[in-house]
């Protein structure tokens, strides 16, 4: 508090002190977030730090806080190398075994990628893409923004025979270092042991994206602040023909490699103003997690929104249909 000796008068020395403190604070913030070499930290730590910084910044300035997230490239190949990833930054090569262990390697990698992404992005509860000043002044339309947390390339000649089932893996496997399964973590409920029943209208909802076999997938985090939740979840995770509130699309893995990639839409139950849900894949092998509710914020005016993390084929048409803008480094 400023001392005032007379009503309305502030000592000039104190005023100058406060100005210097304010100026010093600004300089330190600028130094920490824009100039300090954080090379000693892992890319994931750096991303998480930038996510927290953005989420706790005032809305008018938050869009200008950079998300220092770099897409992780994971190569799962029999020879341990993917030619397509030559020269890529933030690359991890995993040698796939030729036996049945390959199935588990793929499932583990995809499940972990989803977990890491969700964890890194504040489990969907942080307001990351609020549009900054332009959005505050209503100059910008509502759109879905994304971060591609990782890309996973699978090079296995027998992939279609492996019967990869990420969904089942997430239901039955505990996360390393935690006493809950992936499914329980995403559902934010330790009593959850099964997926909700899908509402499938096959004619309407089975959408074909590509005639080409897909062997590269992206783990995508997306977020929107909607006018209503029905639209929000549709924009985040579906393209058309959604029956009911709260539907997500997920890719087939495995069968999709020998046939056109089909995406199914699965219904979520219990998705309301706030809450976590985990989608059930109709006959696919992967899953998506969605959070809709009030974002955590330091400010009084908390925003509502929806976030999702999902595995999608890494294709222009597929990703661009969901993401109007992608942040982070490729």
């Amino acid at each position, binding site marked *: 508090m400023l001392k005032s000796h*007379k*009503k*309305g*008068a*502030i000592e*000039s020395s104190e*005023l*100058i002190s406060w*100005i210097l403190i*304010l*100026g010093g604070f*600004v300089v330190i913030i*600028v130094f920490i977030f*824009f100039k300090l070499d954080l090379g000693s930290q892992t890319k994931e730590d750096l991303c998480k730090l930038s996510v927290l910084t953005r989420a706790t910044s005032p809305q008018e*300035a938050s*869009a*200008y806080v*950079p998300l220092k997230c*770099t*897409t992780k490239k994971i190569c799962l190949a029999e020879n341990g190398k993917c030619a*397509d990833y*030559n*020269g*890529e*930054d933030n690359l991890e090569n995993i040698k796939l075994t030729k036996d049945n262990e390959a199935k588990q390697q793929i499932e583990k990698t995809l499940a972990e990628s989803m977990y890491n992404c969700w964890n890194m992005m504040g489990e969907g509860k942080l307001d990351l893409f609020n549009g900054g000043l332009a959005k505050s002044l209503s100059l910008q339309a509502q759109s879905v923004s*994304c971060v*591609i947390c990782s890309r996973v390339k699978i090079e296995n000649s027998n992939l279609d025979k492996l019967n990869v089932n990420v969904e089942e893996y997430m239901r039955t496997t505990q996360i390393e270092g935690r006493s809950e399964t992936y499914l329980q973590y995403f559902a934010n409920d330790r009593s959850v042991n099964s997926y909700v029943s899908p509402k499938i209208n096959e004619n309407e909802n089975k959408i074909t994206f590509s005639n080409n076999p897909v062997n590269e997938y992206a783990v995508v985090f997306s977020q929107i602040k909607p006018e209503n939740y029905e639209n929000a979840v549709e924009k985040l995770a579906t393209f058309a023909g959604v029956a009911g509130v709260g539907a997500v699309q997920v890719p087939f893995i495995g069968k999709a490699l020998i046939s056109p990639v089909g995406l199914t839409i699965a219904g979520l139950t219990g998705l309301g103003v706030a809450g976590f849900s985990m989608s059930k894949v109709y006959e696919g092998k992967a899953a998506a997690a969605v959070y809709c509710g009030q974002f955590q914020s330091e400010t009084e005016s908390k925003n509502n929104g929806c976030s999702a993390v999902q595995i999608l084929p*890494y*294709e*222009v048409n597929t*990703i*661009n249909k969901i*993401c*109007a*803008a*992608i*942040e982070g*480094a*490729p």
Partner: protein
Amino acid sequence: MKSKRADLREHTVQVFVAVFILVIIFGFAVNFYFSYSQNKEKESAKSIINVLEERIKSMPENSAVNKTIQGVNGENWVLTSFDFSNPNRPDACFEQPCIYICKAVSSSIEEDCKNNGVFRRLNYDEIEIINPIVVSVYSPGGGKQIMGYKEAYNIAIDLPKNLIEIQIEKRIENGKKILIITHYSEEYLANKHKLLSFGEGGKFGTSGGGSSF
């Protein structure tokens, strides 16, 4: 007891200094705000051009690949190139051809790239950017009747805020190292069939002219 006005007069200098300093801080903040938003877009462009450079370098000669790349998180950014065929090329590309990601705000891509862009010099004799469009050809004499369609080429590829697919081709022709980066936009692919109305002669391969779809 002094009046408020007397109090204010007594502290005129302090108030003036305080206001002056606050104005400076406010000015600094506004400047920082806008320059940083520009810088953020440039950082995004840098990371894209790094990926592109690495991908090009890692490719063998006489090969072509399709590459899905992330666009720039900002408006009006384009991918273009400058080689020895362009006398107005930016200084950065004077001795060696280069690829450039620039913010296109005027009709002169050269000026835009000089003012706001990131570049990578590449060891090639020629670098071509091909972004074909279908343009309509009108009847002579300024008529409004469309006579047919032809293919024209933009010398820059618009980079969206999400993903874009490009084709990178490395070729050696008559001892010359050539790099070709091609993008077929959805618009072009949707209208490509119209070129058939002109038959083989419909492809003029010109730059610009007519009106695109």
